[in-house]
């Protein structure tokens, strides 16, 4: 806080003596917070520990013996969950702040160890026989339960990506940015349905006021998955992955995407979210541009190329005007 600035304001007569004293006090007792530095160290520690243990177990399977490793992992995992259970605040369907900064990371470590445990169990003893789905489904249930019970958004994100993996789609943020690795029509349809489902989870959370603050996470994943699946559907119709042979379905995907965008726009205005406004605008822009280019390619003339360039210039200006107007419309933005 800049105390000289407030001195000046006080001399201009904008501040009462009481407030000036408060400001002086606050400036004198201001603390240097190491919050984010310590959190980063903790997070990296958890990352290194879970990664290191994973490799350690993998390399020493022959010498240590499976039982010892399993027991060790199970004990560590149980320890983590026991710590969380002891320190947690009472459960409610509202937002619960974490009791200690440490709590979040112990829970995360516990969940990761549990996934390792199950994977190891399946890998060594094939406990679930050939039901590979079960080996993913059990951690999924535990993740989802932990996310709600201990109120942890990071674990919820893990649960969503694991759910998608269970269905066979890789939706880690990096994979999403690279185009969802959706390269056949089955995965594209799965992705679209998954997106709708996750958005529905957001709607239900808000509607029934059950952990409504999880809504953003659901909405974020859901919107991206659905719209990217639609785009992938449109693009892939070029490369011969049509839903049924011989018919070009890209326009169907375009209609779906348009409907999704309309719904998301309404939602964005309702939640006063510029973030969603921007990403939905950009998805819609890419989709419309794609359709325009496909139509222009049909013309097969140099004029079409010029039209294409002019279209991009004009449409970008149009979208800027739209964003500026929306910015005026939404006051008091939230994320």
């Amino acid at each position, binding site marked *: 806080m*800049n105390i000289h*600035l407030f001195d000046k304001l006080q001399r201009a007569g904008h501040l*009462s003596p009481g407030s000036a004293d*408060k*400001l002086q006090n606050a400036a004198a007792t201001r*603390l*240097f917070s190491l919050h984010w530095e310590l959190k980063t*160290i*903790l*997070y990296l*520690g958890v*990352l290194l*520990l879970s*990664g*290191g243990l994973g*490799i350690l177990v993998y390399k020493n399977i022959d010498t240590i013996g499976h039982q010892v490793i399993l027991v060790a992992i199970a004990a560590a995992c149980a320890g983590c969950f026991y710590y969380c259970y002891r320190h947690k605040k009472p459960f409610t369907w509202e937002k619960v702040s974490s009791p200690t900064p*440490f709590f979040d990371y112990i829970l995360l470590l516990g969940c*990761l160890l549990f996934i*390792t445990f199950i994977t190891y169990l*399946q890998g060594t003893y094939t406990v679930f026989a050939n039901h*590979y789905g079960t080996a993913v489904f059990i951690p999924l249930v535990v993740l989802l339960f932990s996310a709600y019970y201990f109120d942890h*958004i990071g674990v919820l*994100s*893990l649960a*969503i990506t694991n759910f998608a993996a269970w269905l066979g789609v*890789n939706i*880690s943020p990096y*994979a*999403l*940015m690279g*185009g*969802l*690795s*959706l*390269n056949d029509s089955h995965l594209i349809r799965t992705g679209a349905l998954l997106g709708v489902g996750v958005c529905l989870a957001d709607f239900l959370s808000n509607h029934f006021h059950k952990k409504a603050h999880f809504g953003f*996470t659901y909405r*974020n994943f859901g919107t991206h998955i659905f719209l*990217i699946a639609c785009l*992938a559907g449109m*693009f*892939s119709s070029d490369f011969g992955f049509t839903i049924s042979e011989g018919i070009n379905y890209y326009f169907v995907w375009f209609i779906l995407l348009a409907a999704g965008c309309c719904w998301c726009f309404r939602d964005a205005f309702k939640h006063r979210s*510029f*973030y969603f*406004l*921007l990403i939905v*605008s*950009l998805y819609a822009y*890419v989709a419309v541009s794609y359709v325009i*280019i496909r139509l222009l390619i049909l013309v097969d003339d140099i004029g079409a190329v010029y039209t294409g*360039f002019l279209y991009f210039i004009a449409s*970008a*200006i149009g*979208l*800027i005007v739209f*964003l500026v107007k929306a*910015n005026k419309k*939404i006051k008091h*933005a*939230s*994320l």
Partner: protein
Amino acid sequence: MLAYNKTQLDHLEVVAATEQAFKQQLITAEEKDAIIAAHPVAFYTPNFFVRLGIFILTAIIVGFSLGLFTLMMVHGGSDNAFGGLLVFFGVISYVGAELLIREKHHYKSGADDALIYCSGICIVSAFIMFNHGGDSERGIAVIVTMLGAYFSLRFADMLATAAAFAGVIFLLFSFSSSPWLIMAASLGIYLAACNLKNKYYENNAMVLQSLSLLTLYAAGNYFIVREVTEQSQQIFWVSTVLIPLVYLFFGIYRKNRTLLRSGLVLVAAMVFTIRYYHSIAPLEVAMTLAGVAMILIAYILIRYLKTPKNGFTSEEVDEDQAAAVQLESLIIAQTFNKVGAPPKDGFEFGGGDGGGGGASGGY
């Protein structure tokens, strides 16, 4: 020198500080309203995400306009003609940015920064064009440094400052690869940036400080010295080990966040350097032990600083952390999503080429 109106910048600072103080309940609502009314801000600064959108779209407009002009003169055009076109676009973008700022009072609106960057990129590309890709690395570095310095002074732009800094270091390096020279230059720039007390250039000073701290370490790092000069000079082990610790010490002693964070990052660099030459334990053991050690250190410090000591606290001072929590959850989903992904028949996900990159998929 600054393109933006200084009175307006002052007002912006007052309003931001007032809102912060009001959030911490240090002043009353009436006082806040009175101060904001007395300090009107005419700048056009949209929400961050709108700014991002405007930035992208402005870049698209400039890019496609350039494409359109190139297309029109593609018949009989030469490298020089294209270079001339780039210079023309650079100038137009710059004038556009100046006009937006002067007439429309844009301030970090996305359009002004995009135009500045486009202008810089166009002019540098034009320079490369005129040189026909000849031996002109130093020339490019000079141009980048000059443009960066000018844009830093004119628009207080942080990326321009970083570009100018990179240009200077590159120039120095191209004349002499002596580590001592780079270290001395970095130290000089750091001290100069610390003494830069002009409040309009606070962020630029911070960028200079962080970057010069990093280059100061990099120039004295044993691994880098050995790779670059191809001789092993044991003296650089001293700087490899000591510099991060010195940063950390002064960061804590003077409560300087830039020093502290640089120190933390560089401790990791130090560990990697030592491990590269003197590996005591295999990787997984080192990872596990380091993980345990880091968790323990963080745990002890968090417990110790729960009640503030010597002006330090482990609690958060600003409450507004909704965005940070969401970002953290995304990082968790990304970094841990490979954990325990079971082998599954019939599902091989390669890095699909389904063009999430956008409209370019159509060509």
